[in-house]
């Protein structure tokens, strides 16, 4: 197991390096001019030149990349133009809200996904399967920001069960505040994960050992409990892992709708403030978050399924 974890950690290095390269070239090589955008109509040619020098945009590309890499390796991730602070200190301030939201929505997605996928797979092509498929096809097509607004009106204003925005303090209040936003993200995630897990379970149901278990005269309930469910739970780990990036992307919009003090709302604020170093730093942070969560799910998956780590 240790070898597996070590192997995965070593594989991480080139990916992280690639992330810095991709982020740099996507955001710098584009024709946009952050200094002009930042100053807007106020900027004369001198101010623009000064801002370019401040952001290091007057340097040759390779030097800009070296400086950028230096900012990342030093841990500061650059300095925010708007806040005048290192990007990392703002990231650390806003990270908890996003992690809470990701964890909570993942938990809700698991609770929705596993039973519905099982039900759907067992009743394949019959009414329950078609119903689940239909409901979640519609749910997938619902814009999350719109669903968020609708749920606020229904469950926070008409029937005041939940707060309309904010983050709360203490475990209970926090979960209470995050329920609506987490639920919205979870519905969108579940509409993708239920489908993947359903086909995973169908594979298990069609496999030889399940046929054998049935042939031996095991009752359906026992076959499900002993042979199908554990494997379904294991594959749900990888199915959810594959959608991490989707969940994290979803937080950007949802945090803005619910005014949550997370990385996503900071990201959108930075875009409007034209805080270029912040945009860059946050893009890296989001990608690293995805990579780390994927790593964690891969390790969890390997722990649960010996076939993976011995591969």
């Amino acid at each position, binding site marked *: 197991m240790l070898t597996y974890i070590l192997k995965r950690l070593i594989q991480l290095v*080139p*990916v992280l390096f*690639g*992330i810095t*390269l*991709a*982020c740099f070239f*996507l*955001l710098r090589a*584009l*024709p*946009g001019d*952050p200094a002009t*955008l930042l100053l807007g109509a106020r900027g004369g040619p001198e101010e623009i030149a000064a801002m370019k020098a401040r952001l290091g945009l007057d340097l040759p590309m390779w030097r800009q990349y070296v400086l950028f890499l230096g900012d990342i390796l030093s841990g500061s991730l650059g300095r925010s133009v708007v806040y005048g602070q290192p990007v990392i200190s703002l990231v650390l301030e806003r990270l908890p809200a996003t992690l809470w939201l990701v964890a909570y929505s993942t938990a809700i997605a698991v609770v929705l996904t596993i039973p519905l996928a099982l039900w759907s797979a067992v009743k394949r092509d019959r009414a329950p399967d078609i119903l689940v498929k239909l409901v979640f*096809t*519609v749910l*997938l*097509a*619902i*814009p*999350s*920001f*719109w669903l968020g*607004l*609708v749920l*606020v*009106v229904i469950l926070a*204003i008409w029937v005041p069960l939940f707060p309309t925005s904010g983050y709360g303090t203490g475990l209970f209040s926090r979960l209470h505040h995050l329920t609506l936003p987490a639920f919205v993200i979870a519905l969108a995630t579940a509409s993708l994960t239920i489908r993947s897990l359903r086909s995973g379970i169908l594979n298990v149901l069609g496999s030889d050992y399940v046929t054998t278990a049935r042939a031996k005269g095991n009752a359906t309930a026992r076959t499900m409990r002993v042979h199908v469910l554990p494997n379904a739970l294991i594959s749900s780990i990888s199915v959810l892992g594959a959608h991490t*990036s*989707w969940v*994290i*992307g*979803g937080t*950007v*919009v949802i945090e*803005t709708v619910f005014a949550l003090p997370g990385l996503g709302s900071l*990201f*959108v604020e*930075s*875009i*409007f403030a*034209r805080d*270029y170093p912040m*945009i*860059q730093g*946050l*893009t890296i942070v*989001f*990608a*690293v978050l*995805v*990579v780390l969560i*994927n790593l964690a799910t891969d390790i969890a998956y390997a722990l649960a399924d010996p076939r993976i780590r011995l591969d």
Partner: protein
Amino acid sequence: MSKRRLDPTLLVGLVMLLLLALLVGLGQIWTPHDPFLVDYGNTLQPPSARHWLGTDDLGRDVASRVMAGGLVDLRVALICVMAPALLGIAIGALAGFVGGRVDTVIMRITDVFWAFPFHVLVIAIVGVLGPGEANLYIAFLLVNWISFARITRGEVLVLRELEYVQAARSFGSSDTRIIAAHILPNAVTPAIVYAMADVVLTILAVTSLSFLGLGIQPPTPEWGLMIADGRQFMFDAWWIATAPGLAIIYTGVTFALIGEGLDTALRPKG
């Protein structure tokens, strides 16, 4: 040969698409009211015989704006899927067919892009370029090709080993001909199916960006923008944000059903 029947899911999707196209097309030549006409004497009116879906905070007719706004969202979503799809299919076919170092480099690039959450990358690019329709195209072109490249490469890897391709090679067909005549027509099927699902996700992404103020800019009628407009009136005038929201869902379901139906219809039997 047995008579081929149209898959029922595909049929429903196509009928819904036809209806959508008719409404959106009609919206370009005729709407119940002028979608841009501001009427301060007539703001926040609930749905009525005169204004089927009510009016917004500037007194503009919501139904007319939903009809007119459809064209922008459909155009942007379709271009934001089709252009990257073509690019991704070409890159994926190249990687799969040439193999070796070219394949390794292309796959490493897609691995890295894969780590970035889709929304984050698109928002970051639009943030650097500035909002607007043209910049949406650039952002989606840079981000959306990845899945198509991965899907097509996987298909090509399988197909190029199949007997009929080997046979074509032994007849002395050129690489270009093998790719164009034998591999691509079969390799693009999963990419086409995926493209339909991708239209659903892209419509959501485009309307999200407009909702955030980073996509289509006012006063263009656009569904995401209309929801952003209606946001502050959710309680007093729910119809402003409800109608465009339902329009997005209808469009998404349409393409999801077509994707689903195509998947069933095109998947090789046996």
